[in-house]
């Protein structure tokens, strides 16, 4: 890819971010919150994509990092009276360390074994958070001091999204990224052709843990109350996977449009068919899986609208 193309893409990102930055004043509280959560899911999908899209290690426990981030924020802000912004960095750091510690053994497992091990990891962390009452208040959850914060959290989420997109963009256009792809395509060959697969997988996994933690922290401060079942909710992991697959795994733009479209569809079906929204949503997903198995980006490539591969 030429320097001009990179400039054009970064310009598009700047325009997108600027448009979102100008929005909140014109929106109702409901819409402001809705856009903030959409942006959160963009961050979550892009992060999941770093390990599962590029490297092919499908994580069914990524909500663990999100939950770690929201609890870091909850504990530091509500109990230790920290300002909420530095707590996001602590959450990111703790999630990174947990990812490295868990990833070192678990990334040796392949395919469904890895997926199940991650599911178990997330559940274990939820149980630890539930029983470690002195630190986390267990099942009582944590309440934050009640204040109106929809503007600050909106902008914080926006900044986080821009950072996540930039990191994803670097991964998606670098030799680091194509080496992750090589691991996904054939790990034995990649290892025999010079890729230190253990190191690369761990790096991708660590990277993929930081941003959900920060996003979880911002979200916790926004909703002002957290408890283990809501912060370690498996449906959040499923959403990360689904949004990424819908948009197109292993691409930068795929998870972004996947999250924006599906989160919006989810919200609209919920608003319009409150009793049947999961059925409507389910039908939509079945149709997509049937007609666009490689997601929107795969479809775009088949139609000749986008180029194959990520480094040109």
């Amino acid at each position, binding site marked *: 890819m030429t320097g001009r193309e990179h400039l054009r893409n970064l310009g598009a990102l700047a325009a997108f971010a600027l448009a979102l930055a100008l929005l909140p004043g014109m929106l109702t509280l409901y819409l402001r919150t809705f856009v903030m959560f959409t942006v959160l899911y963009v961050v979550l999908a892009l992060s999941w994509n770093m390990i599962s899209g590029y490297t092919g290690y499908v994580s069914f426990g990524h909500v663990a990092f999100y939950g770690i981030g929201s609890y870091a924020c909850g504990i530091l802000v509500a109990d230790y009276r920290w300002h909420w912004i530095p707590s996001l960095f602590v959450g990111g750091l703790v999630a990174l360390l947990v990812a490295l510690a868990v990833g070192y053994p678990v990334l040796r497992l392949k395919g469904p074994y890895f997926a199940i091990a991650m599911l178990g990891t997330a559940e274990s962390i939820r149980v630890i958070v539930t029983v470690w009452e002195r630190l986390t208040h267990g099942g009582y959850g944590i309440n934050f001091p009640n204040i109106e914060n929809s503007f600050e959290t909106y902008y914080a989420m926006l900044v986080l999204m821009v950072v996540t997109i930039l990191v994803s963009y670097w991964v998606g256009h670098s030799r680091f990224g194509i080496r992750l792809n090589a691991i996904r395509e054939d790990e*034995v060959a990649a290892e*025999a052709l010079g890729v230190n697969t253990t190191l690369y997988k761990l790096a991708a996994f660590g990277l993929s843990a930081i941003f959900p933690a920060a996003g979880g922290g911002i979200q916790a401060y926004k909703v002002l109350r957290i408890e283990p079942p809501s912060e370690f909710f498996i449906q959040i992991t499923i959403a990360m996977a689904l949004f990424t697959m819908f948009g197109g795994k292993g691409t930068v733009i795929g998870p972004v449009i996947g999250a924006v479209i599906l989160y919006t569809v989810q919200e609209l079906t919920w608003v319009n068919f409150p009793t049947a929204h999961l059925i409507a949503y389910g039908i939509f997903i079945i149709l997509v899986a049937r007609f666009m198995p490689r997601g929107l980006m795969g479809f775009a490539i088949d139609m000749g609208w986008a180029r194959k591969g990520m480094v040109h």
Partner: protein
Amino acid sequence: MTGDTNEIALDIQDLRKHFGAIRAVDGCSFKVPRGKISGLIGPNGSGKTTTFNLLTGVIPPDSGDVFYNGQNLTGLKPYQIFRLGISRTFQIVRIYREMTVFENLLSVSSLSMPEREARARAEELMEFVTLSKLRGEYGGNLSYGQQKLLEFARALMTDPDVILLDEPAAGVNRTLLNTLLDQIHRLQESGKTIIIVEHDMNVIMNHCEKIFVMDYGVKIAEGPPDEIKKNEQVLEAYFGRR
């Protein structure tokens, strides 16, 4: 113990690998001459591919040593052995199917090589194996012969000293095969050591200077093609006792 490292590229000493009761490689020793094309042949199941996998660290040996430039390779990870300058292709092609031809090549470049150089090298190799027109195509969409060429090019990305080719001729049409063989000779002329596992005896007999024959996990013969053709033990391994 490592032999004359100027003449010998790989010194394989008493290599063993058993899979349960199967003695895939069972005390195999041979010295691969530097800067020449060598052939490794033997009936199906004689342990050729396992030997390749042991040399490249893809599977660890039960015992035995492999010396390369005086350094023992056993215990090293595949990527470490690769970075020492030993590259390979696979019996069944293992190209990256959902990556473009260009990405297949670029993924192999060492990160110590600046990206600009790595890209230039990838372009040069695509030219070398006549795949430039398919630069942006997925590896999985190429024909089998083209995939073999891609794998061959990929093994050359880092300019390795030793190149192990596992059945380069299988499934490749004659014209393409001649191109491939020309390129193998060009590599040899530039000083590379090449080892070929192959069932196509024309390829082995006409292009290798030295041949090693394996049967039931051990080396049963070695020598130039003319000697191997007449060797009783080799004939017996292939055709049975007369």
